[in-house]
Structure formats: structure tokens, C-alpha cells
């Protein structure tokens, strides 16, 4: 098994899928010769040419809309939003068109396509290069939403997304791109969409997270075990829609306590959905309030490092929230 970082895993997934299926193409801003502003598509242009690895004008609406047209025609486009923050000009295409095409045509048209969404803060990107905007899309029926937290999941889920018959938005936390290397199974290993992964077993409380928060939650769980004797179970959701309720509910049934952690703001955030499902379906098993730890209620991540540090969740904050919940 090779040790790869997130970016390498994402690149390898696209490379393998383009090699395997000549209908797969990549389009976006600077994805060609430059290989993307983060380097995710590095080497693909040289290998597959400038039609299958297509530099577009600065037009996110066109990137999404043309990708849908190409998908209707029979291709398998991977559209890159340079930053998730810049997706809004494409909102109409994603929400009015891509998510609804299959339903509105009574199943006669489909948009099998992937939109890659580099998201998240902690990268000195301020309000417009740091957003965690997944909730706009998790509430849109017709889309599938993924947010991997490990290189192996990034590779396996991206391969699944490219092969999926439905439109998939693929959230990649920018801070994780080069944060660490981990083992990635060689060859054609696909991670199924819709399955959460128990990243660490525990019995005192459950921490539900995704993306970069997996790393933070695992570090917090180490601290909790070492300093408090609290065994936290860390459940990496990976797939936000479809959501693996079975794994979530089984964990709550075991621990009786649930902490949901995400970087996006709390009000109406994805944690509200998890909390509501647990409240409705596992009420009898709860031994404490379902708790959310989320980004603050400000319009974006402020720039100065003092301000950004204030904004960002961290292992220490997760430890504190988990201690409070464990003591309930």
C-alpha cells in the first residue's frame, strides 16, 4: 500500500478513472497546464490532452451547466470549483437543473457528474476562500454529497462518485490536502457512497464528524482517553447524503450520548439534521442532550490569524465539549 496525502489520492482517483473510462473528463479554471490552483489535476493535461482536461473561462455557472449538458450527452464530467466559495454563480445550474433533471424528466434524463468543492477554513483564506457551504446542497434533493476525511476515503469515494449515475458534490477540505499521508489501497478500490465509517470505537459518547473534523475529533478522543478515561467513539460520516443512519443510531444506542461537530455555522447546519434524526429515532437511548459544536455565527472566516484562530474548531474545543457532555 502506498502512503499518499489527500491531494495525491484525489489526483490518483481521477487519473485511474480517466484511464479506465474515456468518457471521463475534467473541466474547470486552471485545471489544465497548471494542474489546478491546489495541484489536484497535475499531470492529467499532459496525459489526456486539452479536451479531456479543459481549462474554462472564469464562469462557474458555465462549468456546472456545460458539465450537465456533457453528462446528458453521455460523458462523465468532473467539474472543479476552484474554491467552494465561488460556487454561487453555479447555484442556479446545480439547484434548478442538475439536481432536478432526473425527477423532472420522469427518470428519462440523468446528470452523472461530479462537482469537486475545495472547502473549509484554517488556510488564511478569509471570508471568500474558507467557506464550509455544504448545507446549501445537503438540503437539495437530487444531489449526493460526500466529504471524505482520509486519503483512502478520498480516493475510493471519488471513484465511486465518478461512476455514480447521479450528480455528486465532493467536498474536499483544503486544510487536509497536504496535512498528512496515510495508506491508500492500491488499485481499483471503491468506497461505497452512503456508508459512514467508525474511525475509533468507544463506549462513553459518540462524536459525529466529517472532512477535517475527523482529524480533530480523533486527536480529541486521544486526549479524552488519556486525561479523562473517556472513550469517545468517532464516527466519520463521509457521506452526508445519502446519510448512514444505521451506523449513527447504532453508535448512539451504544454510547447514549451524541456530539456533532462541523466547521460550518451551527444555525440550520448539518448538525441540526443529525440531532433531529437522533432525537426522533433514538430518544429512548439518550443519556444526555444531543450537542452540536459548530463554527460561530459570523458570515465567514475573518482573515487575521487571531481572528481565524478564534473561528476555527480545534481538538481542544472538541475535548471541552465532549467533557461537558460526558459529565452530564
Amino acid at each position, binding site marked *: 500500500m502506498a502512503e499518499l496525502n489527500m491531494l495525491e489520492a484525489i489526483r490518483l482517483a481521477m487519473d485511474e478513472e480517466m484511464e479506465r473510462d474515456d468518457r471521463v473528463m475534467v473541466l474547470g479554471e486552471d485545471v489544465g497546464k497548471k494542474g489546478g490552483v491546489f495541484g489536484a489535476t497535475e499531470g492529467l493535461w499532459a496525459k489526456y490532452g486539452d479536451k479531456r482536461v479543459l481549462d474554462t473561462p472564469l464562469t462557474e455557472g458555465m462549468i456546472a451547466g456545460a458539465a450537465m449538458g456533457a453528462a446528458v450527452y453521455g460523458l462523465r464530467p468532473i467539474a472543479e470549483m476552484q474554491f467552494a466559495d465561488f460556487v454561487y*454563480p453555479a447555484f*442556479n445550474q446545480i439547484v434548478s437543473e442538475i439536481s432536478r433533471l432526473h425527477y423532472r424528466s420522469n427518470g428519462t434524463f440523468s446528470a452523472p457528474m461530479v462537482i469537486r468543492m475545495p472547502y473549509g477554513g484554517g488556510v488564511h483564506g478569509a471570508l471568500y476562500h474558507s467557506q464550509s457551504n455544504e448545507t446549501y446542497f445537503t438540503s437539495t434533493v437530487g444531489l449526493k454529497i460526500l466529504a471524505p476525511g482520509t486519503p483512502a476515503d478520498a480516493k475510493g469515494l471519488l471513484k465511486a462518485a465518478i461512476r455514480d449515475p447521479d450528480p455528486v458534490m465532493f467536498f474536499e477540505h483544503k486544510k487536509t490536502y497536504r496535512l498528512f499521508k496515510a495508506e491508500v489501497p492500491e488499485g481499483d478500490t471503491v468506497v461505497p457512497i452512503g456508508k459512514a465509517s467508525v474511525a475509533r470505537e468507544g463506549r462513553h459518547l459518540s462524536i459525529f464528524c466529517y472532512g477535517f473534523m475527523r482529524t480533530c475529533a480523533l486527536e480529541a478522543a486521544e486526549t479524552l482517553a488519556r486525561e479523562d478515561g473517556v472513550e469517545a467513539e468517532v464516527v466519520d460520516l463521509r457521506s452526508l447524503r445519502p446519510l448512514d443512519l444505521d451506523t449513527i443510531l447504532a453508535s448512539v444506542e451504544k454510547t447514549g450520548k451524541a456530539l456533532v461537530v462541523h466547521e460550518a455555522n451551527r444555525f440550520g447546519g448539518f448538525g441540526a439534521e443529525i440531532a433531529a434524526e437522533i432525537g426522533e429515532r433514538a430518544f429512548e437511548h439518550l443519556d444526555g442532550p444531543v450537542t452540536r459544536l459548530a463554527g460561530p455565527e459570523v458570515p465567514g472566516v475573518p482573515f487575521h490569524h487571531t481572528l481565524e484562530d478564534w473561528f476555527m474548531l480545534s481538538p481542544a474545543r472538541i475535548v471541552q465539549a465532549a467533557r461537558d457532555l460526558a459529565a452530564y
Partner: protein
Amino acid sequence: MATTDIKLRHGDLGLSDDDVLGMYRAMLMARAVDERMWLMQRAGKIAFIISGQGHEGAQVATAWPMRKGTDWMAPFYRSIASAMTFGMSAEDIITAHLAKGDDVSSGGRQMPGHYGGAPYNIVSLSSPVGTQVLHAVGIAMGAWVRGDDVVTMTQFGEGTSNQGEIHEAMNFAGVHKLPVIFVCENNGYAISVPLDRQVAGGSVASRAAGYGMPGVVVDGGDVLACYAAAREAHERARRGEGPTLIEARVVRLTSHSSDDDQRRYRDPSEVEHLKEQDPIPMFAAELRAAGVLTDEIDESIKAEIKAEINAANKAAEARPDPVAADAHERVYAEPIPGGGTAVALAPIEGGSH
């Protein structure tokens, strides 16, 4: 920008008498379906109608060079004659307007006027205007990436020409010389707002220069001029020379839709003279002058159409309505947990309440 002011004869364009009679018949058929649906709307059988009356000449003529089963179309809500020229039948159109369960466009899920049909390479249309133009460009991009000999046509109104997505689509198509034909059907009104309040400079076609493509203005009442422009655009696309923007100046004979009354914002004298610009009698006169159309042929075509419409209407009304139990199906390719169903999962256990 080029304009066509030389009167074109069909023989010079390589069209046979049968071709032009076929175009005439297609225009009459689209009109007859349109008129029938207004009657059905007034009778309470159809909830809403948004008409293509006055656009038929431009629509039939521009769609005529397109190859059925090979080329693609991304329509707009007035594209009734274009969609029929592409292969949709009178029964398909009426069935869709009745929102029947087996309607080819949406199975009764979409409002009337939202054309689409997978068997005909007509992409399903939504309601926000201009989105379809990017889909056309995406299909053209797909054909270009694959090296396929496929041309895509899309239609939109001059009101929609102001959407940002139109700029994005035309610019991208121009950059890569994609095989796509943009047809702007300029009827002078975006619901109630006239051209001079919508389009700076007064011309949509002139914008094409900025995208590196030809912009052609044609009289939408001149069927053969519309055909000539579309045929050249089609050949150009197939030669790999890129997109063309055709602005067809058409007339909107009806109110915007069945929910609108154009007498509130159009001058009475303008409304009174609309019929004089109707492309159907104009084309009939041209065909008569060319010795192609006679009273006998005209009557026979009209009788055929009447019978066909009656049969289509009857067949469409007899089709099954959709059923509510089916409404949560086909949200995703395969059902997913928590998606595509309103039925709650059972609580895991211990639910005594």
C-alpha cells in the same frame, strides 16, 4: 452582423416542392396544436398554456436542417413547432399539456410548455430562463470532445438574452468553436417589457461579434430566409468553424401566456395589426406565387391536420393520469435512504409512543 434582404426561392436553396410543403404543413400543424390547447385551456382541461403562435415560421425553418436522431436541441417554452419538427408528435405535446402519467417530457411532473423528450434528443427544460443554453453548449462540448458529427441547437427569447448564462454560454462556445446554433426568437416583448427597455443597442445578433461568431438577423416571417441562415449555421458547425447566433425577428400573436392579457401593455393598434405579420399566411402566399401551393393542396393538408389533431386530442385525453404513489420515484437512479421518499423510517426500538 449580416442581414438577409434578398428574396430567396426554395429551388435556389436546394429545397424541393415537397420540402417546402412539408415545412408549411409543420407550421400549420404546430399552430393547430397550439390553438387546440388554448381551447382546452378555456374549457378547463389544461391548466396553463404558453404559446408559440407567430414563431412557427422561424422555428420550423431553423429546426429543418437538423438531423433527427443525431442532432440535439435545448428548447425554450415557446418551442412547440421546433419540438415537433424535431420529432415530437401532436399527441406528445397535448399529452404533456394534460400532464398525463406517461407524458414523454415529464410524466405529468412539469407545467405545460416544458418541452423535452429523450427519444428525440430534446433536453428536458426547466422554468428559470436561459439555463438551457448552457446545456446546449455542454452537449456541443461533449460532441467536440468525442469528435462526433453532432450539432446542437438552442432557442431562447430576447428577454432571456440578457441573462448572464447566455454570455457565459456564447463566450465558451466561441472560444472553442463548438458546434452549436443559438436561435434568439425576438418577439419584441419579455412578457410586458418592450425591446427598447431590455436590449441596449436594439439587437441581440450584434452581440455575437464580441464572441467571435457570426450574428445573423432574419425576418422570422420569411421562412426561407430563416432556413437559409440555419442551414449555413448547421454546415458551419459541421465544418468545425464554430457557433452561429441567429436572431429571428418574430411576432408574438398571443398574450405572453394564458395568465396574461397583452391589451394592458400593447397599443390597441399594434394588437390589431399583429395578424398581418402572421408567418403562416405569408408563407402560403409565397408558395402560391411559386406555384407550389394550390387551393386543392391547401384544403387537403388542412383536412389531414384537423383529423390528426382530433385523433391526437382524443388519444391524449384517454391516457392515464399520474398516480401519487409514483411521485417519490425516480428522484435518484436508485432510491437512497432518506431521499426520494416521504415515508419515515421506523424508530429503531422502544418506541412506545
